[in-house]
């Protein structure tokens, strides 16, 4: 298969992803798909940090929360239109990521895992702290209005939010693809695989590590902002440690070292809990855990790596 062919297929796929749901999906299903895109972006941010940057972050939910709250506060207190909150959310979470990336340099591995884990626990507590309560709404959170379609487009809010979210998602996925193929991306992978060699080759370890952390936070933050717009509500309880763990699951299920893996992971974390619930109302969490472990057994490198292995086999067979 030639590259232009596969690019064409990809474009076709994106167009289909936009059009087919608009025609066939109900508002509820569109909402689910919107969440998939928002989570996919967040998992993508995690993939950049962990899969490409080789740093284990357990607290990506904290960036999701920061992105979501940035969007919500701007909309609620400053009457900023929803679409304009995204660049701000990107910048804010990116900055927070960079600031946290700095100690991350000094503390690799487990220590970074601790710092990020702690961050995921601490952020909801900070969100309801009395000093910020006027902005964050404290424990009550902030309720948002659902955006209507602009320019008189004949779309209902669900359809519009989905299209909008998908468009932002596609742009950022393309950006991420270019990022990992760029000099930065190559340097990142060099650092991940051979830190000493990379350093010897003149790759500035610390700068790139911090950068990855910042980029990862940025992607996750935009995902959070989109999620907040779709859900129409943010509160400290929306962003408990469970969210971070969910994003982590999305990463390992999808495949950490891949861009497309983020989509598979997001599909998993949105739909598999519903499946688990169908199987047993008594122990949905345990069923989810079993499914997760089974995936680890049969696709330890994630769905993306399983698929690409199948693809290779398929091509080899031809």
């Amino acid at each position, binding site marked *: 298969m030639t590259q232009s062919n596969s690019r064409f297929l990809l474009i076709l796929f994106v167009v289909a992803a936009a059009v087919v749901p608009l025609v066939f999906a109900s508002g509820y299903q569109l*909402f689910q798909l919107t969440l998939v895109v928002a989570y996919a972006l967040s998992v993508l941010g995690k993939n950049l940090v962990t899969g490409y940057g080789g740093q284990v972050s357990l607290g990506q939910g904290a960036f999701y929360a920061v992105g979501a709250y940035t969007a919500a506060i701007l909309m609620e207190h400053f009457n900023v239109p929803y679409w304009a909150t995204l660049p701000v959310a990107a910048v804010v979470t990116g900055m927070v990521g960079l600031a946290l990336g700095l100690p991350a340099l000094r503390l690799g591995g487990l220590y970074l895992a601790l710092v990020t884990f702690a961050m995921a626990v601490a952020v909801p507590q900070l969100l309801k702290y009395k000093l910020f309560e006027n902005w964050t709404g*404290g424990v009550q959170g902030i309720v948002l209005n659902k955006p209507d379609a602009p320019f008189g487009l004949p779309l209902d809010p669900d359809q519009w939010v989905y299209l909008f979210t998908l468009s932002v998602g596609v742009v950022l996925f393309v950006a991420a693809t270019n990022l990992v193929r760029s000099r930065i991306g190559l340097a990142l992978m060099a650092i991940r695989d051979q830190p000493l060699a990379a350093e010897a080759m003149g790759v500035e370890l610390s700068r790139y590590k911090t950068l990855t952390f910042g980029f990862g936070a940025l992607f996750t933050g935009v995902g959070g902002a989109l999620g907040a717009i779709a859900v129409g509500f943010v*509160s400290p309880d929306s962003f408990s440690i469970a969210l971070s763990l969910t994003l982590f699951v999305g990463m390992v299920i999808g495949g950490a070292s891949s861009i497309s893996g983020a989509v598979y992971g997001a599909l998993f974390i949105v739909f598999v809990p519903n499946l688990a619930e169908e199987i047993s*109302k008594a122990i949905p969490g345990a069923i989810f855990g079993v499914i997760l472990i089974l995936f680890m057994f049969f696709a330890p490198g994630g769905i993306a790596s399983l698929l690409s292995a199948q693809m290779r086999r398929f091509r080899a067979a031809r």
Partner: protein
Amino acid sequence: MKRRTVLAGIGAGLAMPHIRPAEAATVVGVTKTEIKIGHTIPYSGNASSYGVIGKSHSAYFKMINDQGGINGRKVNFISLDDAYNPAKTVEQVRRLVEQDKVALLFNVLGTPTNSAIHRYVNQRKVPHLFLSTGADKWANPKDFPWTIGWQPSYHTEGQIYARYIQQAKPGAKAALIYQNDDFGKDYLNGLKDALKDDFNKVFIKVLTYEATDATIDSQVVSLKESGADTLVSACIPKFSAQLIRKAYDIGWKPLHCMSNVSASVGATINPAGPEKAVGVISSQYLKDHSDPDWKNDAGMNEWRAFMAKYIPEGDINDAGYVFAYGAVQSMVQTLKQCGDDLSRENIMKQAANLKHEVGVLLPGISVSTGPTDFHPIKQMQLTRWTGTTWERFGGVLASS
């Protein structure tokens, strides 16, 4: 050729976006033989302890169906897991409303979760009945005519304690400890509303804890050090039990008003040690299974019979089952009153027109609602732990 067809198809799709018919009829989720009721609750995640409420509802509607249903209709009760995650609640509630097309939502659990769907269900005009949360904001028929709570609000309870302290212990130096979330904050606000400017004079120390803390021993030490002689606590049973035990151990004996959430003998008093809790004040609206007073109570026996038959494996000491049993009575009563008119308007109208007794509520407390009264249960009664039982005193108190 092929490519062109595909593109043409896409063009057609864009030109004629799918337009969904507006909800023409307001009778949704009802057939001659069935009515669909939607519900969400955490069956997974950190708050899955509440899952028993959903389990109880499912069992209760099974019982109703076994007995022939309500006005000849069986109840199709669809209860979904939201893991106490507001985003998931929105997803599940939208599924219930848009895909399963339920007639109404009943007893959706949690403050943040209900907040997330509050506006949606009111825009959609879906009855959002008898929520499983003690926040005060659900009683707002003017702005949110489709939402109604059930239990007395934490806010009200806070006010009751404030008044009790003023009357029982004038000049009290009080301390407050609350869980740092919407549940705890409501007590703080209730106390503030009742005491107004006096709050800062009466309360000399206010502390919080997080639901994820391991212990609150440190807070108890600080509270004692503050010199307070009165304590209001808005904690879940685990921390109330720790609080009672630690206060006793360090020889601190304040007048202790404890949130109704922790009034369970099985979950709070017994773990803490019944002798250590003597004198603790709480307030109740439900009967407590482990309270000897209700050993042969008709209302409680009815509940016990239900438990024995339909949830034999359930933990009888879990107050969640009693709560669920009470809330579902109001649901059934509403549907009975609806008769054959199960339009959403009528369901809401009947939900706001209740006056019935519930066997698991304390004597003198009943459910009553009206077009402008969205507080189904307004009364509570103060109780004092004697070492063996909760002794009710001072008559039934209504919220102001």
